[in-house]
């Protein structure tokens, strides 16, 4: 029963984001509650509608978000971006402030939006849908050795799945997910590892069980993909869905497949964010203060 409650908590995970747009008349703010298991590009239509009243350019040019002058990759889940960018510097207020921009789109850093709607505005949803479908194909390939299930998915189910992702509709999402993942016996587990402060993304095929048949632990995975940080002691902490997973790194009851089932994102990837040792103590004390203060 606890595993369903974990799933519910993961599905309902939200982060509060303050979005600032610097218009000609001064900065304008927008407060958004964004699901961890969602994408910023889903919110762009609402942001454009809101900020478009202050600057017409917002409605006609592709927008993007920045954090500390770093363009935010809209193709990554919000929770992953939060853990990767905000967690290392999170203050007790827990407010994540981003800047919306619409000038000189940083094509070298983030995927451009290439589609427009019939009325000439940027079609954020179509680009995101295309990206998420590609990610699903990738994860399906890792899980099953091929992407046939995704490719064979009917248009109605495909659209339903997409609308479920946008609307955060668990029932619809699960309904199609059951078609895409008919069984839970997988060849490999799709995992992506991000190290805070580094632009490198580690994506390795992770086998859920070892040659002896034992479940592969998170610690074993991290020692393999990041030996300099995890093989010879604890110099870093892995975070999944905003949780410090240090306590479960070598837990024999907590295999990588269990973690994937509990914490996978909508694209079926398990995202692990690694925070290196410096600054961990500060995060601990800040978080404790915030929890006890609330």
């Amino acid at each position, binding site marked *: *029963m*606890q*595993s*369903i*409650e*974990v*799933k*519910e*908590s*993961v*599905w*309902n*995970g*939200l*982060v*509060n984001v303050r979005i600032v747009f610097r218009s000609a008349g001064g900065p304008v703010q*927008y*407060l*958004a*509650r964004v699901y961890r298991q969602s994408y910023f590009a889903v919110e762009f239509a609402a942001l454009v*509608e*809101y900020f478009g*009243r202050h600057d017409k350019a917002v409605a006609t040019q592709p927008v993007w978000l920045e954090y500390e002058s770093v363009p935010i990759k809209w193709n990554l889940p919000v929770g992953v971006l*939060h853990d990767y960018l905000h967690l290392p510097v999170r203050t007790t*207020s*827990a*407010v994540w402030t981003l800047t919306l921009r619409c000038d000189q789109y940083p094509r070298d850093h983030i995927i451009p939006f290439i589609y427009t709607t019939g009325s000439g505005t940027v079609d954020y949803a179509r680009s995101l849908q295309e990206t998420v479908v590609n990610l699903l194909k990738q994860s399906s390939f890792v899980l099953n050795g091929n992407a046939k299930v995704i490719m064979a998915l009917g248009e109605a189910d495909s659209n339903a799945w997409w609308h479920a992702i946008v*609307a*955060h*509709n*668990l*029932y619809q999402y*699960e309904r199609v997910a059951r078609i895409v993942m008919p069984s839970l016996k997988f060849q490999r587990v799709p995992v992506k590892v991000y190290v805070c402060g580094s632009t490198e993304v580690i994506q390795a095929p992770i086998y859920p069980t070892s040659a002896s048949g034992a479940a592969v632990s998170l610690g074993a995975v991290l020692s393999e993909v990041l030996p300099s940080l995890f093989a010879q002691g604890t110099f870093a902490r892995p975070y999944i*869905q*905003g*949780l*410090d997973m240090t*306590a*479960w790194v070598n*837990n024999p*009851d*907590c295999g990588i497949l269990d973690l994937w089932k*509990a914490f996978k994102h909508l694209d079926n990837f398990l995202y692990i964010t690694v925070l290196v040792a410096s600054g961990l103590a500060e995060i601990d004390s800040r*978080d404790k203060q*915030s*929890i006890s203060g*609330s």
Partner: protein
Amino acid sequence: MWNDILQSLNERDILEKKDSEYYAAFAQLAQQLQAVGLESTSPSPSPSLTTSGEYNREPDLAKENHQLKAEITKLIEGINEKTIAAEKAELRASQAAKAKTSLEKQIDKLNTKIETLTAQLKEKDRSIEIINDEALLNQIQSNVLKDEIEKVRHENESLIKRWMAKVREDAERLNEENAKAG
């Protein structure tokens, strides 16, 4: 394990959902502002007339659209809650079905055991009957033997009496002859 993870998730949510009520209130206000903005952009009191003479229902439709979006969001939240509740119920049903299957297996095992024990009991009853019959037979034989022993004892006593009488007669006769000779 899941209990600890759930606890950590709750702590995460306390931190990350802090001040959420203000964010929710802002979202509502932004929607209302948007609706008001649309109404104010209308050149005449709604519904306005377009150049073609038709009513310009765009602001009304946009307002309705916003309201419907808000309703859909609420409905989806409700569906998500129901989905989780359904999953919990499914899990409970699956656990109950497993327990039922396990109990049925146990019942089958116990029934088999009862059958075996009943068969053993019948066998033992039969053995007891045989033993009882044998005991009865032995008792009869014993009684017969007792009677025979009694009979033999009587015969023996009678023979001893007769023998003693004969010995006495012989002794008396011998005494008489000795007395005559002396």
